[in-house]
């Protein structure tokens, strides 16, 4: 298999415009004859379903939640980037493109990133028109802030609830199309298989989570917008129902999975409090704009923070990275926190935390300004930890937050299965090895509002699609496959809890495939994961019946997929013997301890082909070329 990314020719700034012209169109009167299946209703899924519905396609839209408005995009706090240059501080499409390629540590595709930067501008306009209540200045114009590793103020926000407001904008557009009957909504449905007919994606098998029924849906193209795989680590900032199942089942049907080892660990999360913990809560990294990160200079200093004098504190980010200070990219901030904890300078009871201190900002700006900017985050922190961050510094620690890897897609967002398109966090294309803050919302909406409406038309107009109904043999086969797996899960009847096994998988992943990875740790994980998988299939207890709402069965199915997927993630990390972005191999670092890339050998996207559970997948490499932004050692000093 050769991977053709379908990147249009011409200068980088002209590629998308040129491509838009060269792509084929579907006649307006013919659009309603095409059925498009969209799985997921987050920023990417809802914006895609709404936009395709507006264009006149017949859209079937699925989500696992009880309402499309609950997709996990809702939890994004900080903001969305756009190259508007409203602040007159030197921003431009080219600068946003440059920052994103560099921030991704030169492991993303230049053409995709440039398009993303171009479209960022349209997203803001679209969202404002929808009535998204972005923060404004006194003059009535849109406010911006600088965010996670950027030296210009290009982040638009709606308090600490930007994801919520953008998602509700997309959700409302979606519900408008539901009302107009161009989109048919299927809530509480979980996609459990992709149906491929004559080599093309033509439908899905879904389980109705309320009734347990296995349902078949046929269409002319399938769009997956099913998010990331962070919960493979058990504890993450992801919602509990976020999972890899839809993407993994598509992978098993032929879609290559790219760069699974590129996972992002977010530096500003609330530390773990005990074994009962079900998830970790992120606090927007916008907090780093005004908070100062520090640990005691002395190892094992157990004094209360207010008893540690100024000259005995180590503001290590400001010390090591004077030009970026507390605003270094996420991977750098996370690794430095881990390093401080490893040195025995971590704070709090577990020693697995660092301080984020607002005292200076409160003295400089006043408590009211801080309350206005971060009030809801301080309140959230207090609810969880019972501490008042206006008075004592917050304790923060890194946690898994986002996954840059995903199903491989070309420039048209189409996977290696013709007709199967993948959007948002579920694909791999735009963030390279590390995503910058406020870029995920931008990518989800760019894909859904402004890319897929064009590229899917091009696909539909370029192929001949004979009519396929759900009684086709491929549907029968896929639905039997799904039924078989459910029966198998219910018939183990062991005595181990599903959560217990998931927690164990998470511990393997965090300890051995986490923030710092070594050849030895990855080999250890590759031994442990298949063992745990066998144990799962021998000893898991999944009570209840298949023909009913059964949350244990849903959860068990997702954990079973993670037990297969985790092996691929670890293998990808083992084979990438370089450090880049969120993937840090201890063997590959500079004398100062920074991530050291190996451009000569690893400037490619690793796209894995499924060959069976427990057998080694085949890797296909898409070489990455950098014509605009020349790879350099990232330096935030």
């Amino acid at each position, binding site marked *: 298999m050769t991977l053709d990314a379908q990147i249009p020719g011409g200068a980088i700034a002209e590629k998308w415009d040129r491509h838009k012209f060269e792509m084929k169109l579907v006649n307006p009167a013919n659009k309603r004859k095409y059925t498009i299946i969209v799985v997921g209703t987050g920023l990417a899924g809802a914006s895609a379903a709404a936009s395709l519905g507006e264009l006149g396609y017949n859209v079937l839209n699925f989500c696992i939640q009880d309402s499309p408005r609950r997709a996990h995009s809702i939890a994004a706090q900080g903001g969305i980037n756009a190259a508007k240059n409203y602040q007159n501080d030197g921003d431009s499409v080219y600068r946003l493109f440059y920052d994103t390629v560099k921030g991704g540590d030169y492991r993303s595709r230049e053409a995709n990133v440039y398009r993303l930067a171009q479209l960022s501008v349209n997203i803001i306009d679209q969202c404002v028109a929808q009535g998204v209540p972005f923060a404004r200045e006194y003059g009535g114009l849109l406010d911006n802030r600088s965010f996670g590793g950027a030296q210009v103020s290009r982040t638009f926000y709606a308090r600490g609830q930007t994801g919520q407001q953008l998602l509700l904008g997309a959700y409302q557009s979606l519900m408008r199309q539901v009302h107009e009957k161009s989109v048919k909504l299927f809530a509480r449905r979980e996609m459990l298989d992709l149906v491929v007919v004559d080599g093309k994606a033509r439908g899905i098998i879904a389980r109705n989570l309320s009734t347990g029924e296995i349902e078949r849906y046929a269409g002319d193209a399938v769009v997956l917008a099913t998010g990331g795989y962070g919960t493979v680590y058990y504890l993450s900032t992801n919602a509990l129902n976020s999972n890899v199942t839809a993407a993994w089942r598509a992978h098993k049907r032929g879609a290559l999975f790219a760069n699974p080892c590129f996972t992002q660990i977010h530096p500003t999360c609330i530390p773990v409090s005990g074994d009962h913990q079900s998830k970790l809560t992120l606090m927007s990294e916008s907090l780093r704009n005004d908070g100062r990160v520090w640990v005691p200079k002395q190892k094992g200093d157990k004094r209360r923070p207010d008893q540690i004098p100024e000259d005995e504190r180590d503001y290590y980010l400001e010390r090591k990275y004077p030009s970026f200070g507390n605003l270094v990219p996420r991977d750098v901030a996370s690794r430095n926190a881990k390093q401080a904890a490893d040195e025995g300078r971590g704070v709090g009871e577990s020693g697995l935390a660092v301080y984020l201190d607002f005292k200076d900002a409160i003295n400089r700006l006043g408590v009211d300004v801080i309350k206005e900017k971060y009030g809801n985050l301080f309140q959230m922190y207090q609810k969880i930890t019972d501490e008042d961050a206006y008075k004592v510094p917050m304790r923060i620690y890194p946690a898994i937050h986002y996954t840059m890897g995903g199903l491989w897609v070309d420039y048209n967002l189409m996977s290696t299965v013709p007709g199967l398109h993948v959007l948002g966090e579920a694909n791999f294309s735009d963030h390279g090895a590390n995503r910058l803050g406020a870029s995920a919302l931008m990518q989800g909406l760019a894909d859904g509002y402004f890319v897929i409406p064009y590229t899917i038309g091009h696909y539909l107009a370029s192929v001949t699609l004979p009519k396929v109904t759900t009684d086709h043999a491929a549907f029968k086969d896929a639905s039997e496959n799904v039924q078989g797996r459910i029966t198998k899960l219910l018939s183990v009847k062991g005595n181990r809890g599903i959560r217990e096994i998931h927690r164990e998988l998470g511990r393997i992943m965090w300890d051995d495939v986490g923030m710092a990875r070594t050849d030895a740790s990855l080999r250890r994980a590759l031994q442990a994961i298949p063992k745990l998988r066998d144990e799962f299939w021998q000893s898991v207890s999944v009570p209840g019946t298949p023909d009913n*709402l059964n949350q244990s069965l849903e959860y068990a199915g997702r954990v079973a997929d993670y037990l297969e997927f985790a092996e691929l993630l670890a293998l990808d990390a083992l084979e990438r013997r370089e450090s880049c972005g969120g993937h840090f191999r201890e063997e590959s670092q500079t004398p100062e301890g920074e991530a050291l890339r190996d451009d000569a050998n690893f400037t490619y996207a690793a796209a894995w082909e499924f060959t069976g559970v427990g057998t080694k997948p085949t890797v296909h490499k898409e070489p990455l070329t950098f014509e605009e932004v020349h790879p350099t050692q990232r330096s935030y000093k």
Partner: protein
Amino acid sequence: MNLKLRIWRQAGPAAAGRLVEYAADHVSPDMSFLEMLDVVNEGLTKKGEEAIAFDSDCREGICGTCSLVINGVPHGPDRGTTACQLHMRRFKDGDSVTIEPWRAAAFPVVKDLIVDRSAFDRIIAAGGYVSVNCGGAPDGNAIPIPKDVADLAMDSAACIGCGACVAACKNASAHLFMSAKISQFALLPQGHPERHRRVTAMIAQADGEGFGSCSNEGECQAVCPKEIPISNIARMTREYVKAALLAK
């Protein structure tokens, strides 16, 4: 601490439900309320018994999925808090805790503590949006919006659509939910072209779904996890009256 739980179990929409007693032992004060339920469920699962079905997702108070009535109060005893943000330090050893689903004719029980809130989606579908297709939007700064207006609109837009307002209301009214969306668009200039059609259509939809009327008790704002005030309902009523008076 050890707690005595009384939890609503109901096998399906048509089945009869009842309160069943469970013991929650060795509960840590740092656990969230839902993590306490996770531990109870883990125990049941290991014994091969069916887990207690309840909805939750983000577990940080923003998705609006969790929906438990705890000791008679939607989302439990803390103000401005969803059930998933409630921590066990709020309870003490020996407490008994009753856990029930949202109770409203328009939110039928699906199973145990899970209800069907799709009526809220249909209310939004009836008019809770600005009718702009993707594509031709003017520049984001084309219409200046005073900061205080934008802030007020954001206060209303903060609604997470959980339905606690309906569960707390003796009339099972959806007025607070609807009025939050209607206020957002009544305040922002983008919402003005459709303001009359919107308020009329959304209220008609809510009536049809079986939600009740508002009788100004204010229970809704008392339980709202986002503390959305009932002044939104007053604004919605003004919008409704204006729409009726100006109807062609």
